[in-house]
């Protein structure tokens, strides 16, 4: 068996390299590195500066407190506020006035802000006026895990775990089906079936090749963006298991179809259905419906994140690895059975 598996591996590596699979993997990984390093900004937070003007009528102490730390954002006139706002399309303006000893506040908007932003600004000013007497700002924040580097990660590097999940892991999903259909089209699988080789080795070889490509892609993406930081061994284990599962699922879907053009749409659709909510959850962590937590890419994404940017949550890594060992084994058995059924039907 080792001789046969090595023969299958050499064959699959050679045919996939000569079929430009390796080249595609490297080019896509390098494009992602370029995208992360040079296109996606390090800081993606959108600043909305607020320009203030305090009229001469103001004597209210609380009103004066609002602009206490605003420095250069305090302007001399309402006209100057409007002029500054025209130069900065994301800015807002606040005119603080006093009529009959009562604060009068005017909020100037660009006109396209949603009600939520305006309400937030209103609330902030109200809080400053009525609930924030001097001294209340002295709230001390104590961090239980001062070593956590969460806040130090630039925005572009933050999306590296997502890229690792989408490219090296899910790449196998489509590529393995393509590899399988090429062989089906050439009829080489028939020649293999009249040899003593069995189907489990045949599938295993392809899954291993996809895993190797996944690991290569992971190394290019992570080293090219965040360098050698993080737990690289854990990362490679996670990517390997994720790739095995993705390849098996890709093969199972492909087993229901006769050619790549028939299988491509279901494979791509499945890929979108699985990855879109996971991507959403990545950018909006509060989005975590129960069905999402059942999808394997969900825990995998957070485990990959933990491996690349460790916070000391070893439990997450080990649990995910355990879970994916089970997923990989079960999916592999289903894949072999699906192909046995499929080939017998032919």
């Amino acid at each position, binding site marked *: 068996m080792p001789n*046969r598996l090595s023969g299958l591996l050499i064959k699959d590596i050679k045919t996939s390299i*000569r079929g430009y699979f390796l080249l595609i993997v490297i080019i896509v990984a390098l494009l992602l590195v370029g995208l992360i390093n040079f296109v996606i900004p390090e800081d993606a937070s959108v600043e909305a500066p607020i320009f203030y003007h305090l009229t001469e009528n103001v004597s209210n102490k609380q009103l004066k407190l609002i602009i206490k730390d605003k420095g250069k954002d305090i302007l001399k006139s309402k006209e100057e506020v409007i002029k500054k706002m025209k130069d900065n399309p994301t800015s807002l303006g606040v005119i603080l006035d006093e009529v009959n000893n009562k604060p009068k506040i005017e909020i100037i908007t660009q006109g396209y802000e949603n009600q939520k932003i305006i309400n937030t600004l209103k609330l902030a000013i109200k809080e400053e006026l009525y609930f924030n007497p001097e001294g209340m700002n002295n709230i001390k924040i104590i961090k239980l895990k001062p070593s956590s580097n969460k806040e130090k990660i630039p925005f572009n590097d933050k999306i590296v775990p997502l890229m690792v999940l989408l490219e090296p892991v899910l790449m196998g999903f489509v590529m393995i089906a393509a590899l399988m259909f090429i062989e089906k089209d050439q009829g080489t699988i028939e020649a293999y079936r009249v040899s003593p080789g069995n189907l489990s080795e045949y599938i295993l070889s392809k899954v291993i090749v996809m895993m190797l490509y996944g690991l290569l892609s992971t190394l290019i993406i992570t080293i090219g963006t965040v360098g050698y930081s993080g737990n690289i061994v854990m990362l490679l284990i996670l990517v390997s298991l994720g790739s095995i599962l993705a390849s098996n699922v890709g093969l199972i879907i492909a087993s229901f179809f006769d050619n790549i053009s028939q299988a491509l749409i279901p494979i791509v659709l499945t890929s979108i259905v699985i990855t879109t909510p996971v991507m959403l959850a990545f950018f909006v962590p509060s989005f975590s419906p129960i069905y999402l937590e059942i999808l394997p890419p969900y825990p995998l994404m957070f485990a990959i994140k933990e491996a690349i940017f460790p916070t000391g949550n070893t439990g997450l890594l080990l649990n995910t690895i355990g879970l994916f060992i089970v997923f990989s084994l079960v999916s592999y058995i289903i894949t072999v059975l699906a192909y046995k059924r499929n080939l017998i039907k032919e």
Partner: protein
Amino acid sequence: MIIDVKGLYHSYTNDDNYAVKDVNFSVKKGEIFGFLGPSGAGKSTTQKILTGLLPLQKGKASIDGNNVKKSPNRLFNTIGVSFERANVYKKLTGIENLEFYSKMFNVKTLNPLKLLRMVGLENAANKRAEGYSKGMLQRLVFVRSMINDPKIWFLDEPTSGLDPTTASKIKEIIKDKQRKGTTIFLTTHNMHIAEELCDNIALINEGEINLIDSPRNLKLKYGEKLIKAEYKINGELRKERFSMINKEEIDKLNEIIKKGKVETLHSQEATLEEIFIKVTGRGLK
């Protein structure tokens, strides 16, 4: 019997529309058994069932004592299968294809380069199969099926698409393997190769075997012996065929010979194709 088939049926549509029906035959050790029939007659279907590429739906079939329904994978160590379709890895070179395939077996395999040399592919050994011509691919598939030095060898149209010289080389290899004791199951629609190589032939048409016998017996039983004569009458050269089972024609030929008017005289046998048409009512094409 090394191959034994009884009451074999197969339907691709899982109904009564059978691609092969009630097929019965057996092949002795060391024999070349030919399946002769036109395209779509059921030749390849039978071969695919015997080699496990199609499930055995109905009937019994055994190879070397192993029921093909439950035949173990190791049985393939003693079997070679050459396909009509050039199903090789196009991205691999000729020699890489053979080296890969040799690793699939648990028995000693033959030297890939020697095999390529046997069919004149040694100069293309390191060329990718995608650059091979149809004939070269056919030869590569043929030698690939020999890599494990099989005891039972299935050949599907082994000379299809080959030039006469290469086809002759392939036929020599087949004869040589038979001399060394290999049992050969050969499917073809080519009457010449069937006649030249086979010890026994099954004539198959529309999924049914019409006849099984040796080429010689088939000719004796179903072929009409003829004499082709060229003779002169009143200075005019005439060509005519005389049946050797028709008394009138025999007498007429005797008369011509007696008069010494014969220029040339040749015996003629019916071809397998003529016999096939006589038995099945259709041609081999």
